[in-house]
């Protein structure tokens, strides 16, 4: 039974602490914070972007726009694999032009989702700049994508899965990042 349980690597408190730090880093990096636009990649990015927006409000009194951008239709493996993953919602309440867009994702591994998100974003306009937040960086990049803000670097094996729990429909559930051993999830 060795290793058969999910291993917690970040609880809700840890997640909030990391996002507070990232909020400070975002303000440090951006001289014109009024053009910031947080764009969450569902599902995991959505609660994280919401927390980040609250942090930016508390720290600097900023009312930052928050969007949601599903990347599924931009994936590079759809037709080749025959997969038809369920689509998720996209809601981009503000224009992207001339904004500094901060993409927010829960777990970054190959970089393919971020690549897809950048392509999707360009269909909405021409941002002044794009920056990326990854709550967990697993490594194993397959594309030249680097993160601007990282919550936690977590070295993992390729076969393992890292999941943000509590990002689903139930808002009462607390957030937690867990590592699932290789056999526990369908690849």
């Amino acid at each position, binding site marked *: 039974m060795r290793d058969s349980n999910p291993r917690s690597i970040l609880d809700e408190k840890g997640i909030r602490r990391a996002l507070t730090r990232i909020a400070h880093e975002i303000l440090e990096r951006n001289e014109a914070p009024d053009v910031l636009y947080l764009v969450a990649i569902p599902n995991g990015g959505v609660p994280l972007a919401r927390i980040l927006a609250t942090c930016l409000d508390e720290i600097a009194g900023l009312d930052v726009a928050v969007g949601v951008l*599903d990347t599924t*239709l*931009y994936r590079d493996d*759809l*037709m080749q*694999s*025959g*997969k*038809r*993953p*369920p*689509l*998720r*919602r*996209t*809601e981009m309440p503000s224009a992207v032009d001339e904004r500094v867009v901060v993409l927010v994702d829960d777990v970054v591994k190959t970089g393919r*989702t971020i690549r897809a998100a950048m*392509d*999707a974003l360009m*269909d*909405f*306009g021409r941002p002044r700049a794009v920056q990326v937040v990854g709550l967990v960086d697993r490594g194993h990049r397959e594309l030249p994508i680097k993160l601007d803000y990282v919550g936690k670097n977590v070295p993992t094996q390729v076969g393992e899965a890292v999941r943000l729990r509590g990002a689903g429909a139930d808002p009462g559930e607390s957030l937690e990042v867990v590592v699932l051993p290789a056999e526990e999830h*369908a*690849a």
Partner: protein
Amino acid sequence: MMGRDLLGIEDLDREDIEKILETAVHMGEVGQRDVKKVPTLRGRTVVNLFFESSTRTRASFEIAGKRLSADVVNFSPSGSSLKKSESILDTARTLDAMDPDAVVVRHGVAGVPKRIADVLDAPVINAGDGAHEHPTQALLDLLTVQQEKGHIDGLTVTIVGDVAHSRVARSNIVGFRKMGAEVRVAAPPPMLPADVETLGVKAFTSLRESLDGVDVVMALRIQNERLVGSWFPSVREYSATFGLDRAKLRYARDGAIVMHPGPVNRGVELSHDLADHRPSVILDQVRNGVAIRMAVLYLFAGRRRGAGSSAPDEVAR
């Protein structure tokens, strides 16, 4: 579970229908963007094989394919090739050799899409066959009702008109029943198929009685040319007894919506006023048609014989 082809609502279970509707909701969002195009089917080919002319459905499939970045080829072998006595299956086989990723078929005879699917590698989407099925029409109608009412389960729907000769009616009866709605049909007796109640619907020969307390009224198009004289005495009489106007609509539940697959014969199936104004939702149906066809192409294009019969994976990332 969904197979390789979409030949009829009959072949879908409730879960499949819900999955297509859910996908279409998100496809509808793509249609609201400035850039109404996603790269999903880039490099894929969709063939519209229409043996029976249809500007609207063909345009809807064409726009849907293009919004997904597929190459769309329209093929209407009404004239030349069929006159050269090329058989339908020969035409289909010829197209298949060009390796399309989906073939959308419309034909005036029931069962032709199925026959074509039997010889093709590519998945076949039925865009209407005779009086049999028109699955994407029923799906777009279901989506429209879901958006208007928030749910389908528990609603009561009345379908008015030439039920006996209507693939739209057939697909909708099956679809709404599968989604948990009660379905009624109303028509002059010659337009009611003898076995209609075996489909699980209640048949009425009085429009007024059929409307009592319903949430949705769906009027079917009357094929003027074909039917006058043989099925009912005159258009005027049909419109007086089975044409819908605001006075008759009062028998329905408050907030009931009015649907029509188009094109409307104004003053026949619907009064002029109802054809253009709420509670009719005809243009929403058209808009949802594109979203549904995008969803169907996304879910079915690229499926192949053998490999394609299994359910698509739902891997999260």
